[in-house]
């Protein structure tokens, strides 16, 4: 066991993946000499050299497109997109090329690449550097989507992503890089695509992922102080999506909130809510509640930013309302 940060866990996963497989290479803006905008790749350039830590010009579509071609040609590229907000620029290469190549070409070739990026709020970085755009990716068949919430998952899920046969979009959260945790690097990796149940309670289920896991856990602790026990599920990957785990707990408890930082409308929460309603309808005591980002862009103003995505207090209050309805009935 070693205590490390989310940032260092990601670096260690890249280092171990590169040491193990010499086809793994990192390509992106400032990934090499600079060490990454958030410091994740610092030191890897010195360790692995310019051939495997490839600095690029500011040319996002070409970075992703080059990774697609490299992946089709026997390499295993890890492309880095500095902010998920830039994903729209790359959507042709990601959505029309990477995601569709295996299918369009009748299974002849896959695109085993990882697109590492980061998203979310928390740095007052404004509307073009603070978004949660995972729904764009989840909406595109052919792309895997991983969003680690813990240090341990940052390590193990990135290691696993480097072994996938299909393109993986790996979205880190910008507010988690300094989070610390004891990690057992030698532990067996969690099952790919499997959700993790962090807490079990009988009063409500909170389904979440990425940074909102921590908000949900804090809210659950606060609710426990008032006698309300919540189950908290971290999906960890949104594609594959472990709906079995969600179903099991929803059917047991009957009250559900989905918590996500992305905007509510047509977001990940909408997909989860729809599936729960479709597949667990008979077990629901109340409608599924979505606790998501507001349907607005992110402000630079710290107060507006903070209050435009779920806070611990807000999750707690929504949870208590959901449960309170039951006691009132």
């Amino acid at each position, binding site marked *: 066991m070693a205590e490390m940060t989310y940032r260092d866990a990601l670096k260690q996963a890249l280092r171990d993946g590169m040491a193990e497989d010499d086809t793994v290479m990192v390509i992106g*803006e*400032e990934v090499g*000499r*600079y060490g990454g*905008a958030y410091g994740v790749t610092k030191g890897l350039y010195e360790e692995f050299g310019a051939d495997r830590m490839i*600095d690029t*010009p*500011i*040319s996002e*579509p*070409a970075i992703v497109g080059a990774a697609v071609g490299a992946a089709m040609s026997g390499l295993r590229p890890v492309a880095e997109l500095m902010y998920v*907000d*830039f994903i729209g*620029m790359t959507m042709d290469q990601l959505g029309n090329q990477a995601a569709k190549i295996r299918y369009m070409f009748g299974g002849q070739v896959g695109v085993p690449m990882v697109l590492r990026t980061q998203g979310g709020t928390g*740095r*007052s*970085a*404004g*509307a*073009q*550097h603070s978004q949660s755009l995972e729904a764009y990716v989840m909406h595109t068949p052919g792309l895997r989507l991983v969003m680690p919430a813990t240090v341990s998952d940052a390590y193990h899920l990135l290691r696993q992503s480097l072994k996938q046969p299909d393109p993986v979009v790996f979205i880190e959260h910008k507010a988690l890089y300094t989070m610390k945790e004891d990690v057992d690097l030698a532990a067996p990796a969690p099952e790919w695509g499997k959700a993790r149940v962090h807490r079990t309670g009988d009063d409500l289920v909170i389904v979440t992922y990425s940074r909102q896991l921590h908000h949900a856990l804090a809210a659950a602790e606060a609710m426990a102080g008032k006698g309300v026990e919540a189950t908290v599920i971290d999906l960890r990957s949104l594609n594959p999506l472990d709906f079995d785990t969600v179903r099991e707990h929803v059917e047991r408890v009957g009250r559900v909130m989905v918590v996500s930082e992305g905007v*509510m409308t047509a977001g990940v929460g909408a997909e989860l809510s729809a599936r729960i309603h479709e597949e667990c309808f008979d077990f629901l005591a*109340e*409608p599924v*509640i*979505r*606790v*998501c*980002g*507001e*349907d*607005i*862009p992110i*402000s*630079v*103003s*710290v*107060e*507006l930013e903070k*209050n*435009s995505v*779920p806070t611990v207090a*807000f999750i707690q*209050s*929504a949870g208590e*309302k*959901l449960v309170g*309805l039951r006691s009132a009935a």
Partner: protein
Amino acid sequence: MTAPIDTAVAEKVPRSNTELLALYRQMRRVRTFEERVGELFVRGQSAGSMLHLSIGEESAAVGVASLMRDGDTFTTHHRGHGLFLARGADPKRMMAEIGGKEEGYCHGKGGSMHIADMGLGHLGANAIVGGGIPAVVGAGLASKREGKGAVSIAFFGDGAMQQGILYESMNMAALWDLPVIFVCINNQYGMGTRIEQATKGRALHERGLAFGLNSETVDGLDVRDVRAAAGRILDGARGGTPGFLAVECYRFFGHARMDKSPYRTPEDEEEGRAKDPVGFARKALVESGESSEADLEALDAEIAQEMDATIDFTVAAREPALQTMFRDVYAPGEPEPESVAARIDRILAGD
């Protein structure tokens, strides 16, 4: 180091000091504003983790902006404080915006990287590299239709020279003879990547030539040179031939406020900072006898006082009220988005 300067152009530059004092004044205001906003950031009294200073690039901002007229429009990159201030922005409202305050130009929603003011023709700063460039094509179309001779200018850094959208935009502007110019402020670094590490095509203005644009590269040391080159390019654009101007300068500090730029050596920084357009103009004023040291010290002090007042204004300015977060997603009068909280209450009260 820098791209070759077209000496044929440089020789034609008028060397008159006539307006140098006014240009110096604007450059000094830009620099002092940025020094103050940097202080505010370090003191933790500014919103945002994103603060990109353009210290060292003042001649580009002032040289071009001093030739803009009412009705002209422009877009900037994320390092655009100087351009906006040189165009006539109120430093108080600018700094309040950078601080995320209600009194700012965008009511605290935009901040440093997304500031705009339609009244001054500022169609917006942009945090996406190259993101603001194509808008000038549309603005140019509108201007051409209106026929009043207004131009639209895209300002961007050398990082955007490697973005495909620039080439699509230059091609359309040339194809349709639009009153548009593209101004690359080449500060030598796209974040931590030196221009030589980003491209082998070093004579940046040749890319404009390839699309049929009037194109020049100018050294940014002397603001008069920048102004003269910008004048030629702007005249062409007002006459229907779009243009491209690269201004060679040096970014004195890191990419963003907390970047200590470990990717460059102290020697490189020293050499780069020697190309100080503000210091150069000051020296030229004194050496030509146009201004005395005492005059310039008084001027600098007056500007420092003006910019100190911007800090006081920003610190005292109001945080935007929470409900304003739902405003301006859609047009005034349209329903605002329903908040998540209101929606939950509605659903749970529903049965």
